[in-house]
């Protein structure tokens, strides 16, 4: 029950941030394409795709580390990090080697999920939030 709820919450979070990240990358990419800056647009979208894959893998492997022995969890975490970093290396090496991708834009794309998380939280906190009213009613410190 707990595990399912956790997984559902993770998937919901991933869906939200990944769709925002790819939408923003495609939108920005189209603008760069229109201004004939194709390598920048391609690099941004390329980097964002791998940023999303990394974020999804990060979330998907989280529950797998729970409920197994400590040694197995350590080995599993190491392999998961190795896999994710090897994946992140693909767009970087490609943009270093291929002129059709701009390296700077690819790097920006790799941080797209993180940027979207920050931007989304800030916007909600400072412009759309009504939480202040809610939390002042129930202050319960669970010891």
């Amino acid at each position, binding site marked *: 029950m*707990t*595990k399912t*709820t*956790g*997984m*559902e*919450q*993770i998937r*919901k*979070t*991933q869906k939200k941030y990944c769709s925002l990240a790819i939408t923003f990358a495609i939108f920005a990419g189209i603008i760069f394409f229109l201004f004939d800056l194709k390598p920048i647009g391609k690099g941004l979208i390329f980097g964002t795709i791998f940023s999303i894959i990394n*974020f999804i893998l*990060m*979330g998907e492997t*989280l*529950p797998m*580390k729970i409920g197994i022995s400590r040694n197995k969890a350590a080995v599993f975490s190491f392999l998961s*990090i190795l896999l994710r*970093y090897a994946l*992140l*290396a693909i767009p*970087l*090496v490609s943009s*270093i*080697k291929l002129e059709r991708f701009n*390296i700077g834009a690819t*790097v920006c794309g*790799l*941080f797209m*999920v*993180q940027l979207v*998380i*920050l931007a989304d*939280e*800030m916007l*909600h*906190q400072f412009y759309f*939030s009504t*939480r202040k009213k*809610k*939390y*002042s009613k*129930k*202050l*319960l*410190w*669970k*010891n």
Partner: protein
Amino acid sequence: MTDDIQVWVKVAAFIGGGMAMGFGALGAAIGEGYTAAKANEAIARNPQISGDLFKTMLIGQAIAESASIFALVIAMILLFTDFAAESYVMVSVLLAAGLSMGLGAIGSGVGSGFPAGEACTGIARQPAMNGRLTTNMLIGSAVCQTPAIFALVTSFILLFTNFSDRPVSPTWAAILGAGFASGFGAIGSGLGGGLVAQASCEGIARQPLSATPVTNVMLLGQAVTQTTAIYGLLISFILMFKGFAPSQSIAESMALLGAGLCMGIGAIGPGIGEGFTAQSAVKWISRNQSATASLTRSMLVGQAVAESTGIYALVISLVLIFVI
């Protein structure tokens, strides 16, 4: 001769890449592990909201990982770019770029794990504060990344500026010193910033009505904590951009290398110390809001005193560069 330079440039690129990723992975791994440990504790305390806790842990780990992704970027550039082998200065440039990014990512990686972990604990204890705690954690973690960004900037400048027209001696030492100043200089500030952000997450969970002053003082405390990383960046810029006259004396080269080391290592302690000061101030502001003004004053005075050793390091570095 050119072949020799080419071989050494390749060797330096490989070692630099290894150091960038090796050191760079260190901090983020510790930070992420700390977050996960605290999340486990929080889930055990309040299993009904495990979904929210998983979400916070995932977001916190994603941000803590940024520093090691910076390191990965620099490592990949070092490993897969064909660098011009015109001068032996390039050897020093590539080593310094790797060192700067690798060392610079340690503090930010560990530091941004602290607020993420504390946010998990806070949400378990005070579920109604989930949104505010997540935002505060994200702001705190993002500010913790600043020293790593300074190190990244230094590495990029080193990699994309042409130093081959400079005399090999003492430029090799100045460049290496720049890498040390920026890399070591970022460690203390990253860690210190993390401590402050951790206290603010704990404070908001404990006393939600104090959220605004706690976040404000956290930002002030983190800003002061970053100053030693800025000193490191300053010395690094001077070492990179001040033209040095050719010299065959090893003493002059060592003075420049020493300047970088002095500033870099000298910035570690003040960064952490200032973090402790601001951590305590933020912690007690959440418990006693009426003392915000006195606590803020005491925090700033304490941080100024803790910073003095960083200023001594800055002065000695400037003496080594401009006087000796």
